[in-house]
């Protein structure tokens, strides 16, 4: 077999990504010392809305915080056990269990006591979202909590009345924010944040599109370190500016054939959250010349996409690119609701077929030779229907490997067995360790 060898080099944006991430957690923890406000909520929360309270309002998003805990195995286990000791079932969302554990232990992963938020600002689409923060609020002695129901159906069936339903909750939410913080609300700041969010999430999709190139400039493991910033503050200008830098770097890598990995013999994608404590799975693939170029999860958790005139899947055109000037609060909220409802990762809550179609589309457009599906016991929301996806991908002609695990509970992941399964899968693709 001909094994192509490409030049590769570390990402120039790597250190800045780490700095931004550290700054995010530091800003949240130190917000009160600096006279600011802290809020907690999910990575999919409408984070642009609390920005209307001022520039000193800092979020803590639960899923990436839960994922971060995976990298400290000792703390991770203590968090999970603390939650179980409190009586919560082991088969609940494992991000949520880690987050609750951190509260129960009153320890913040990044040092010190767990910093209590001033309010919870959540949305609700999966079965755990609102319950997560209801319990978190109770564990922290009663933090004011607001949740917006966004489970209105897939984007291709969205009507004006469904948008109205979400926007009316947003309007109420702004009044609620004013009441519980005692602050005035600045619509200009909201409008800026909505522009920022559209830019950030469209830019991320544009970055992912460049991975259609051979050799791929980015591998999935590296993508995790970059996409995470969108899950922290997708509404911030800083993250948008950073993604613009990443996009430039990716264009440079594409033009100069700088690959993510030295050998790219076959291209794969994975699905759902990875087992965060075992990202070496992706490095292991590289020994065979197999590169995971992303996943529906990395592409579509924060990336916002649309059908392009040539039939391909590409970054959604932002309101600013269309020349739309946002002038009112209602207009900003309406755009924000519509934008988020088109999020790829929200579609398959309603039907696994929607997800299969997107995955097959990725397989074709990114020219894949195989797919690895993580039967993730830690997230019911993103794993629902995954066996259906497997059948659809096989029917479409793509080899599929499945492995069981849990994104955040390493007790449910068998590393040796998974590697052994990868060995078999690689052999079926005709690959041997290079």
């Amino acid at each position: 077999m001909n094994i192509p060898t490409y030049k590769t080099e570390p990402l120039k944006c790597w250190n800045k990504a780490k700095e931004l991430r550290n700054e995010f957690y530091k800003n949240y923890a130190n917000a009160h010392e600096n006279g600011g406000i802290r809020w907690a909520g999910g990575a999919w929360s409408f984070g642009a809305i609390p920005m209307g309270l001022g520039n000193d309002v800092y979020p803590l998003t639960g899923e990436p915080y839960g994922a971060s805990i995976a990298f400290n195995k000792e703390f991770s286990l203590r968090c999970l056990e603390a939650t179980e000791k409190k009586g919560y079932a082991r088969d609940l969302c494992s991000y949520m269990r880690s987050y609750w554990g951190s509260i129960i232990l009153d320890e913040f992963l990044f040092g010190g006591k767990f910093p209590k938020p001033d309010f919870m600002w959540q949305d609700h689409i999966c079965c755990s979202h609102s319950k997560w923060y209801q319990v978190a609020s109770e564990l922290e002695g009663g933090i004011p909590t607001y949740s917006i129901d966004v489970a209105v159906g897939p984007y291709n069936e969205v009507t004006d009345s469904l948008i109205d339903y979400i926007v009316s909750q947003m309007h109420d939410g702004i009044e609620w924010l004013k009441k519980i913080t005692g602050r005035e609300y600045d619509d200009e700041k909201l409008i800026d944040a909505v522009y920022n969010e559209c830019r950030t999430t469209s830019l991320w999709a544009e970055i992912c599109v460049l991975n259609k190139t051979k050799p791929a400039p980015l591998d999935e493991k590296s993508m995790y370190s970059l996409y995470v910033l969108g899950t922290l503050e997708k509404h911030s200008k800083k993250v948008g500016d950073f993604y613009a830098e990443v996009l430039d770097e990716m264009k440079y890598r594409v033009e100069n054939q700088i690959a993510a990995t030295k050998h790219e013999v076959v291209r794969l994608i994975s699905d759902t959250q990875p087992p965060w404590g075992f990202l070496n799975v992706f490095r292991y693939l590289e020994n065979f010349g197999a590169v995971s170029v992303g996943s529906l999860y990395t592409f579509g958790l924060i990336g916002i996409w649309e059908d392009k005139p040539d039939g391909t899947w590409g970054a959604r055109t932002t309101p600013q690119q269309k020349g739309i000037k946002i002038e009112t609060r209602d207009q900003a909220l309406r755009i924000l609701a519509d934008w988020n409802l088109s999020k790829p990762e929200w579609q398959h809550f309603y039907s696994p077929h929607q997800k299969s179609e997107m995955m097959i589309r990725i397989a074709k457009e990114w020219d894949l030779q195989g797919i690895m599906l993580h039967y993730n016991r830690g997230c019911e929301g993103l794993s629902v229907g995954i066996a259906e996806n497997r059948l659809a991908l096989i029917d479409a002609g793509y080899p599929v490997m499945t492995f069981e695990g849990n994104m955040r509970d390493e007790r449910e992941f068998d590393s040796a067995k998974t590697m052994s399964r990868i060995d078999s899968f690689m052999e079926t693709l005709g690959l041997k360790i290079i």
Partner: protein
Amino acid sequence: MINVGIDVGAKNIKIVALQDGKIVSKGHVLAGFETKDTSQALYNEVLKKANISPEEVNSITSTGSGRKAADFASNSVTEVTAAAKGATNMFPSARCVIDVGAEEGRTIRCDNDGKIIDFALNEKCAAGAGAFIEAMGRALEISIEDFGKISLQSNQEIPLNAQCAVFAESEVVSLLHSKTEKKDIAKAVNDAVASRITSMARKVGFEKDIILIGGMAKNTGFVAALTKALETDVIIPEDPEYILAYGAALLTGN
């Protein structure tokens, strides 16, 4: 041309030596704790039986969950590849290979050329493998050799509800306490394993011919339960436990 295949399984080590593609010697031994030394000793014994000197050997290919222990091998392949190669080489009509060993059950779907299309493996649970039968045999005080024969004497359908070997053992003990006959419990155990394996086979999809390999193919009660669950016959090679080693020997690394 001498090619050797070594299958270092979870419980047994099996070795096959081929001369120009024909089996000229074979042997097996309990893996024990000193797998590396045991593999080497069995290798020497298998060569000696056929009067082959180590210098005459052109390739040694290891497979099995403990294949790294056979560090004198020149090449290694996974169990999935070895099983498919061995079974399809022996039976070119094979389209599905079911391999049930001590610790793992696997089903493999192949195309007309013997190429693997899809495969499924059991997860970390042992309830779809031979170790489960051994554990239940201990609970029933039936030797592993008699387990299949005894289960064939039963015509009862007793579903084992537990999906886990540990819980199933406690269910078996409960059945014993309720005076259920041993033959009926043995059949229930074989039915339970067959059900798990059938579900894996359905996952990858199967069509005839189906080749059943691995040590569990010698358990007649399991074979009866499996053919009933699959609603079709299976072909069992003469020495089903050697097929991985045979397949490995064929995969010379060239």
